[in-house]
């Protein structure tokens, strides 16, 4: 009873039915008993009235003739009615004539005078008073009192019987309800079992079988719908409605089993959207999501349309599962039973074409291309993990070699990937380990031949890879977000060095440091440079920041602002590799630059190639007319030097003078060079 709420449904049902039945039965039986007893009492009252009337009529002679003995005799007849307790006859003037008592109840009382007509229960007796008439005249009356033992006995027996019936019925109803509840409760229990199984096994493919059309049937339907939805969510990507990674992996596993058994090839195609991050950042995540949806649909249509769709057994088109979104902007496609690896390439081509079409999203015309990597079973791997990894590696290679293309996996790629991964790892620790150093290439004054300063260049000496050139590690640093830290370090180190050399007497020493795009566009650049100057103690005029053309030209308004700030501080600004980028000449006059550095490609053939010579000359003239100084990079021969000197090039830099050197070597070089010069001048 106490555990009603905790009990199982079946038991609850049993309790309820039994309780209800019991309750109803008790009420019914109680009412029945009451009604029966009430009827009995009525009956008894009627009977006693009849008795009174009969006896009274019988006594009319005795009453009229005042025959006491006769009257007494008549009353004695009441012995026959065992419940009569006492009786009396009265004469016509209401006087008591004769009385009667049942022996055992003596001395019961009778009224001394005849009362008014009465029929009813007084205390524990049934009383009747009846006035008698004979031939229209009142001749007296009769009084009879009877006990209620009859009722009591009857009630006792009745209740006994009713109780037995009640108990028997209750027991029967318990059995009946137990039997019925089994039938009713069974579907609920089945549903419970199903729920438990789904939860335990995480198997969302199970469904409940509907057994009735009542509310339980509705629940089952609802439950099945929910399972459908969960199934969908569990196995499909919400945004694109493609399969999710988990589902794809399962499909891949089962496809591999089949492919192994049937000795077939299959292809795993891995792709992502180039520059997706940039699109997301610039146009917002809403557009990003729309783009993903569009490309996903295109991908699906494209794959479905091809002849090589995965179908396994008699399942409904698992083409739905053979295209998946792996997360972010990465997608995977599984193609079963391909005859030759190059067929996968055909599919990849189609995908390329389909996904590269510009998309109109929310008013923006968005361009994107996929980078695709393909791995073939069993050629490129026997197992799902390896195939996926290799497809990913191939995709990365495609990216590296110029996006918007596909690559079939090749063993060597792995080495590259490995190497790249390793390089990344090493680079992360490089700064801490002090593997990064600055080398300095001297800048020579074009007129005097004196050393005016140096350009600082980063070098990396790694235990594993040896010397790694900046061309290799700078892009990696940019990609892994290390460039800012490196750049700051380089800046600080260079400034300190310059200050040191200045203090050492190496004349006012100008140091040139390259600034990467990322560094230039970061917030707080000015602040950082200020800090560096303060920390190093270097005067701002002694610092030259070298920026590439493209860097400067991009976001020109903002760039101008930043450059102006830097100029205000007193820095010198140089445009590196001038002539090779997008340069817009109109910007030149707006940008607060001090130097133009002519790219080495022009200097290389300046003495042998007329065009190079013309261009170089033109640059020098242009710069001078704008009050800018010119630095020539990559001067290697005396002829080049002579030519440049002749054109009035302000500064020169190159192997003719020196390769970039470590600081100690530079000092030595400086001393030696100055001595020579002094000697020359002497």
């Amino acid at each position, binding site marked *: 009873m106490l555990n009603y709420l905790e009990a199982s449904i079946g038991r609850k049902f049993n309790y309820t039915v039994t309780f209800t039945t019991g309750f109803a039965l008790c009420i019914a039986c109680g009412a029945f008993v009451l009604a029966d007893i009430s009827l009995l009492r009525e009956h008894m009252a009627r009977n006693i009235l009849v008795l009174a009337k009969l006896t009274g009529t*019988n006594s*009319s*002679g*005795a009453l*009229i*003739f005042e025959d006491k003995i*006769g009257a007494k005799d008549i009353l004695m007849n009441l012995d026959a009615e065992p419940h009569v307790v006492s009786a009396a006859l009265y004469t*016509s*003037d209401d006087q008591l004539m004769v009385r009667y008592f049942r022996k055992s109840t003596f001395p019961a009382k009778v009224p001394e005078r005849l009362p008014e007509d009465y029929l009813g229960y007084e205390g524990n007796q049934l009383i009747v008073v009846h006035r008698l008439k004979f*031939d229209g005249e009142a001749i007296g009356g009769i009084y009879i009192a009877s006990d209620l033992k009859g009722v009591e006995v009857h009630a006792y027996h009745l209740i006994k019987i009713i109780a037995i019936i009640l108990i028997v019925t209750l027991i029967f109803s318990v059995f009946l309800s137990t039997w019925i509840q089994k039938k009713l409760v069974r579907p609920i229990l089945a549903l419970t079992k199903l729920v438990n199984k789904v939860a335990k096994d995480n198997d969302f493919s199970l469904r409940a079988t509907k057994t009735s059309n009542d509310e339980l049937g509705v629940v089952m339907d609802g439950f099945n719908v929910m399972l459908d939805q969960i199934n969908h969510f569990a196995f499909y990507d919400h945004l694109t409605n493609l399969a999710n990674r988990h589902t794809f992996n399962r499909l891949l596993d089962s496809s591999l089993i089949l492919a192994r058994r049937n000795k077939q090839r299959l292809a795993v195609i891995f792709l992502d959207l180039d520059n997706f991050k940039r699109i997301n950042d610039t146009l917002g995540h809403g557009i990003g999501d729309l783009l993903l949806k569009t490309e996903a649909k295109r991908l699906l249509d494209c794959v479905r349309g091809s002849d090589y769709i995965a179908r396994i057994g008699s399942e409904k088109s698992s083409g739905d599962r053979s295209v998946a979104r792996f997360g972010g902007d990465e997608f995977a496609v599984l193609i079963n039973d391909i005859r030759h690896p190059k067929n996968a390439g055909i599919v990849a081509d189609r995908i390329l074409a389909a996904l590269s079409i510009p998309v109109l999203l929310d008013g923006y015309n968005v361009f994107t291309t996929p980078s695709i990597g393909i791995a073939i079973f069993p050629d490129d791997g026997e197992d799902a993990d390896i195939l996926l990894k290799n497809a990913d590696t191939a995709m990365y290679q495609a990216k590296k070699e110029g996006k918007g293309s596909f690559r079939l996996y090749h063993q060597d790629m792995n080495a590259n990937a490995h190497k790249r991964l390793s390089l990344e790892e090493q680079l992360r620790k490089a700064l801490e380990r002090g593997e990064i150093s600055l080398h300095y290439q001297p800048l020579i004054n074009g007129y005097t031949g004196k050393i005016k300063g140096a350009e600082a260049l980063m070098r990396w000496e790694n235990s594993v890879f040896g010397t790694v050139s900046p061309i290799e590690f700078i892009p990696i640093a940019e990609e892994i977000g290390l460039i800012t830290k490196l750049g700051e370090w380089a800046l600080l180190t260079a400034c300190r060095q310059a200050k040191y050399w200045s203090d050492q007497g190496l004349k006012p020493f100008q140091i040139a440091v390259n600034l990467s795009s990322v560094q230039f566009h970061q917030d707080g650049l000015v602040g950082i440079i200020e800090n560096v100057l303060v920390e190093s103690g270097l005067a701002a005029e002694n610092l030259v920041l070298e920026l590439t053309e493209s860097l400067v030209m991009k976001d020109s308004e903002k760039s101008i602002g930043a450059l102006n700030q830097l100029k205000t501080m007193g820095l010198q600004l140089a445009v590196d590799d001038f002539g090779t980028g997008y340069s817009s000449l109109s910007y030149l006059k707006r940008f607060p630059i001090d130097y133009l550095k002519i790219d080495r490609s022009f200097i290389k053939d300046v003495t042998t190639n007329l065009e190079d010579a013309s261009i170089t000359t033109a640059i020098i003239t242009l710069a001078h007319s704008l009050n800018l100084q010119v630095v020539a990079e990559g001067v290697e021969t005396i002829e080049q030097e002579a030519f440049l000197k002749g054109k009035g090039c302000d500064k020169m830099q190159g192997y003719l003078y020196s390769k970039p050197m470590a600081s100690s070597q530079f000092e030595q070089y400086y001393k030696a060079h100055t001595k020579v010069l002094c000697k020359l001048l002497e």
Partner: protein
Amino acid sequence: MGVLNRSNILLGISFCEYLRSIERSLLPIGLMCVLFVNSVPSAFADSIRIREEKIKVAVIYKLLKFVEWPEESIRDGDSFCMCIVGKNQFGNTLDNLNGQHIKGSVVDVAYPSSIEQLDYCHALFITGADDGELREFLRQDSSRPLLTIGESDGFIDRGGMIGLFTKNNRVRFEINVKSAKNNGLAMSYQLQRLARKIIQ
């Protein structure tokens, strides 16, 4: 109602009790009454007799209630003819029956002078100790439902239906049910119970 009211009948039923009630106040006289009931001076004896007569009349009146006449003989609205014959010593007492109600009819007391006049009677009270010329009459059964009441000895033996007598200072009666039945009359069993003697 005069003589025949309730209290009187009550007192009358046992005139012995009545006498006794007088005796209480007149004890010696009462004793003498009991002892010398027959030798009392005639005036006193007369008064006793009158009492007895009154009682008999009351009894007769009550008796009538317990006899059933056939339907045709008493109709609603008709009068009930109570005939008196014989040496009438009852005087006016019987007249008191006049106007009483019997079975929905009004009693009419009559004193027929011939047997033929008896045709109209419902009940006939033959007074006196001797039936006289009606002896023969009594023995006959006729189709005429006529209740015969007498106070002579052996009245019912001679064919009379109800015989009154005094015993132990009480007026009692004996009945001849057979005779009544033969004349189309029915006697209530109550009479049978109360009667001293019954001829079936």
